[in-house]
């Protein structure tokens, strides 16, 4: 780890005259930037997926949900869903997908901003990122609930299916299909980013709190 140790002779001088190593300040910045990068990468991999198995689909039918698009056997799943009067997959979360890219870039920029804000406001800036995976899953649940509760009774088999919510994670059964839903690498990256942000904020506080405190002490009347 020697190479990660920056020159130990270079010190940061605090307003109270004490010193800290350079690492103390680089570490939180690096962690926030890594978290930001993880969010960016997550845009290119699926956040969530579902595979449906039935005898006549030996390889199963899969839909991969990215923050900005759907891929996989969407065409065929829609084809099957029309029998029970479920709306096309593409109709759920349209607004979310349309603003997803810009939103994630914004989240990343908030984290980068945190690098330059050397007080407790950095934590406030990171708050949306910490909330992001929870918001994503809540929204996904809402979308799935809406799907399962938008069955058109006039469709071929709509009257035979009771409204339902497909499971967000794990197994479910719809007609002859067994479904398996699972988190994708995108969601893991987002959750990971949250953990890295929390770690970063902890080091951020460790690094900058003494400075903030020292400043307060300096400003306070002697």
């Amino acid at each position: 780890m020697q190479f990660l140790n920056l020159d130990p002779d270079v010190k940061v001088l605090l307003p109270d005259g004490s010193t800290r190593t350079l690492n103390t300040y680089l570490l939180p910045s690096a962690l926030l930037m890594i978290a930001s990068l993880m969010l960016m990468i997550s845009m290119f991999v699926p956040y969530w997926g579902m595979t449906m198995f039935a005898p006549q689909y030996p390889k199963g039918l899969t839909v991969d949900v990215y923050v900005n698009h759907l891929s996989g056997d969407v065409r065929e799943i829609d084809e099957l869903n029309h029998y029970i009067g479920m709306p096309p997959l593409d109709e759920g979360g349209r607004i979310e997908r349309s603003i997803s890219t810009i939103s994630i870039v914004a989240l990343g920029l908030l984290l980068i901003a945190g690098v330059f804000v050397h007080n407790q406001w950095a934590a406030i800036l990171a708050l949306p990122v910490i909330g992001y995976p929870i918001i994503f899953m809540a929204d996904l649940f809402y979308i799935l609930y809406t799907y399962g509760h938008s069955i058109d009774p006039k469709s071929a088999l709509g009257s035979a299916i009771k409204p339902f919510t497909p499971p967000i994670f794990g197994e479910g059964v719809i007609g002859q299909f067994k479904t398996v839903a699972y988190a994708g690498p995108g969601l893991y990256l987002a959750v990971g980013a949250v953990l890295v942000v929390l770690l970063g904020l902890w080091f951020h506080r460790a690094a900058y709190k003494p400075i903030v405190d020292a400043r307060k002490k300096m400003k306070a009347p002697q």
Partner: protein
Amino acid sequence: MKLKLVSLIVILTTLLAACGGSATNAPTASGLPVDAAAIAKERGLSPDDVSAALKTYMPSGKTDPYIMIASGGQSGQVLVIGMPSMRILKVIGVFTPEPWQGYGFGGSGDKILAEGTVNGKDVLWGDTHHPSMSETKGEYDGQFAFINDKSNARLAVIDLRDFSTKQIVKNPNAINDHGGAFVTPNTEYIIEGPQYAAPIGWEYAPLDQYKEKYRGLISFWAFDRLKGRVDMDKSFQMELPPYWQDLCDAGKGPSDGWIFCNSFNTEMATGGVELGNPPFEAGTTKNDTDYLHIMNWKKAEEVFKAGKTKKVNGMPIIEMDTAIKENILYFTPEPKSPHGSDVTPGGEYIVVGGKLDPHVTIYSFEKIQAAIKAGNLNKDVYGVPVIPLDKSMETQVELGLGPLHTVFDNQGYAYTSLFLDSAVARWSLGGLYEKKHPEPGWKLVQKLPVQYNIGHITAVEGDTANPGGNFVVALNKWSIDRFANIGPLLPQNFQLVDIGNTGEKMKVLYDMPIGMAEPHYAQIIKAERLKPFEVYPKVGWDAEKMAVDPNAVTDPKLAGVKREGKNVTVNMVVVRSHFTPERVEVNKGDHVVWRLTSIEQQRDATHGFAISGYNINLSIEPGKTEVIEFDATQSGTFTYYCTEFCSALHLEMLGYFLVKP
């Protein structure tokens, strides 16, 4: 693998002898269940039967490593067969309408079949003979297959991306053929050799003018790979003596640029048994020898490009005199009325089956070239230079009675069908092939009886520059007692033969009945060379043009019926389990253009489309667009419905076609 089988057989035999009808099903050491022995005993299966079953059985879910493309004989179709399981995978409609594929029942197949019209007459059958797959560097490339129709001198192109017929070419100057289809090593040309001589263009000429007016005619059909079509403008023909040329093969390697066709009526017999003349069967076999035709197609191509041709019915023909003058055509004697003319994998030799002579005659391309170079050759009655047999022949191998057709394996052996002996002869090639096998070259190694009357023989890629080995298939003309009696018309018998490894005996593994025609030749390709579509690559695909139809309507919202005067266009979208629109109403006498597009993308989600009373039935595979054009000649209430069981609501997939009086 071999060892395992042997040990299996040993174990089975032991079990048969020792434990008899054991009821338990615990696996033995080899993994074979104990009750297998009981089954074998109960069914009276020998150890050889058991190993044959193990070699051919294809468990559910496993697919065959080889695909055989076989002639469909008089059915005018082509058979696609999985090997070694010998299961028919598809019957491709070629010269004959085929309702399952909707070929010839309203869609684009009608146009293709119409190309096969003979002088304005629909000929809706074909006598398919010799399939030939496209080759690159002398090996199958898995892109196209071609087949001829002997009965009307036609050639068809099958695209192996969707295993369907794309083109029929009617030879404008011949009325029958036989020596086709054979391709040159890079599929520059598909060769269609002639059979029974007739005046060029089959115009009338009395038989007493046979020598002067009757001719053989060999066709060189240029193939445009990108378009997947024969290019008539780049194709040409060559006039030959009326000697009834039979089978041909293209040279490869050192003999690339040449083709070799045998012939069987140099006697120029014209029959007339009713007039006291010898019948054809005697007249054509009088001479001791006929002529192997040796033709330089690259030179012929130059002569054609230089315009030294005569146009007949729009086709440029290199006249016989030009062919002789330009050193394109040579003869060499061959034992009378032979069959088969087959070039060895390396292109060094040409093997001709004796049919009425117990030998195969092997010609050396090197010797032929030396003799041509030396010149000073005698001339045939038509002036064609004749290379004496001792200047062209490498050797002869005595195989047995009725040698017809020869194919090759990867171990330096040749396999010749023996019609009269009802056997397959395995014999060793000499020359460079000698080091591949333990036997001396040019020797009969084994004869395997087959059931019965073998015609052609085929081996895994056995007519290419790189044969695959493992199996040959005897394409037997008679089956007599091989199958349950189903009346006086018997199926043919495709017999799968294990050719095993060097030093092992050949064995018959499986009998496959062909109960729809009498096929002739077949070719076997390694399945991995084929890259067919799983579904058509884009929605709105015109399978005839192999491109997206710009007029295809793929959005159900845009589907519907449009009218312009008496012309009605129906744009229909097809998807499980409904047609859009479901009601089409026209007036009697309207001209209807009905365009259907399947927007399915799921493999095997095929729909059919039939209109009652109008002789219409189509197959609409995922992504495919088909266009039907017809006049609404009958008024009334008709239904159209899906004819391919597509889904649980398949019966509900229909519409009403109302024609107002």
